[in-house]
């Protein structure tokens, strides 16, 4: 943890102290709510992080790219999706991979599905959503996002093709 990481929680604590000094009547509600959410978070976060770590330890980094390179058809679309959903780090890590995939001739629809899945349906993220917003909310949002992202992939592909007759990434690699 660097000093910068501690700035946000410290600022929040200072704000809380100042506000609660001024309005002591609210202390019970504020602390009670904070504690309840903190406990809920602690009940689930270590398990989620263990899974993230095990994934990182067991699955080599290049495996995702290797599988996506030969993905095609509807199966390819689904595979791109699953690959994106694996617990593999922040979105900015996915852009160079997506760019390399386009350069290698992967379908635009697959790359969009891969990127969007990476952004919004990560496995650890879904677990926390399940914990806080419940199975109905999590499951219906998951199904709807999967459907939208697949549709969006195909749409983006059509729109880009109409304009340029193809897609050429700006910085092609490989």
């Amino acid at each position: 943890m660097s000093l910068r990481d501690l700035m946000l929680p410290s600022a929040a604590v200072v704000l809380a102290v100042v506000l609660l000094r001024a309005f002591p009547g609210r202390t019970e509600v504020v602390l009670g709510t904070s504690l309840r959410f903190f406990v809920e978070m602690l009940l689930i976060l270590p398990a989620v992080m263990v899974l993230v770590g095990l994934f990182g330890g067991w699955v080599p980094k290049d495996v995702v790219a290797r599988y996506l390179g030969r993905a095609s058809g509807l199966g390819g679309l689904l595979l791109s999706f699953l690959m994106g959903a694996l617990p593999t780090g922040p979105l900015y890590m996915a852009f160079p991979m997506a760019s390399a995939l386009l350069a290698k001739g992967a379908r635009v629809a697959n790359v969009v599905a891969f990127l969007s899945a990476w952004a919004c349906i990560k496995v650890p993220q879904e677990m926390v959503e399940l914990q806080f917003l419940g199975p109905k909310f999590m499951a219906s949002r998951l199904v709807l996002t999967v459907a939208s992202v697949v549709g969006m992939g195909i749409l983006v592909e059509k729109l880009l093709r109409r304009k340029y007759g193809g897609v050429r990434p700006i910085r092609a690699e490989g």
Partner: protein
Amino acid sequence: MTYTVVVINLFALACLLWSLLRDPARTRRSLAISLRSFLRVLPSVLAIVVLIGLLRGFLPPELVSRILGERSGFGGVMVAASLGTVLHIPSIISFPLAASVLEEGASVTAVAAFVTTLTMIGTVTLPLEARELGRRFALLRNGLSFVLAIIVALIMGAIL
């Protein structure tokens, strides 16, 4: 709620045991990654937990429900979707925040719109996405994501 906790913890424990039996050294390396990831999110978790407490204590529920509740209509959904687009909050801590706003009277539609734009759209990463994949690609993906997030949210509001 507790059911979820039990299932996820048992699952993680099972995976951990499997890993330990297969390869203790690799398991140790994996747990080092786990610890690093945990320490990385911990400061944001602390900050959001304090913030949620403050919101509960100082933000009147009537205000939340007026801006983001059922009566706020499509305007409320747009406010939530725009907040999700502009804010840059790690998604893992956005769910407790969303749950707390839901408890305070925001509608399912607004919360779904917020969570979906927050995760799908990256305004901070947009320049990077444009550089790697082209401006048209990045703008199309993020723009369409906004529209889709609102559609997803409206359907969720209707079925939940």
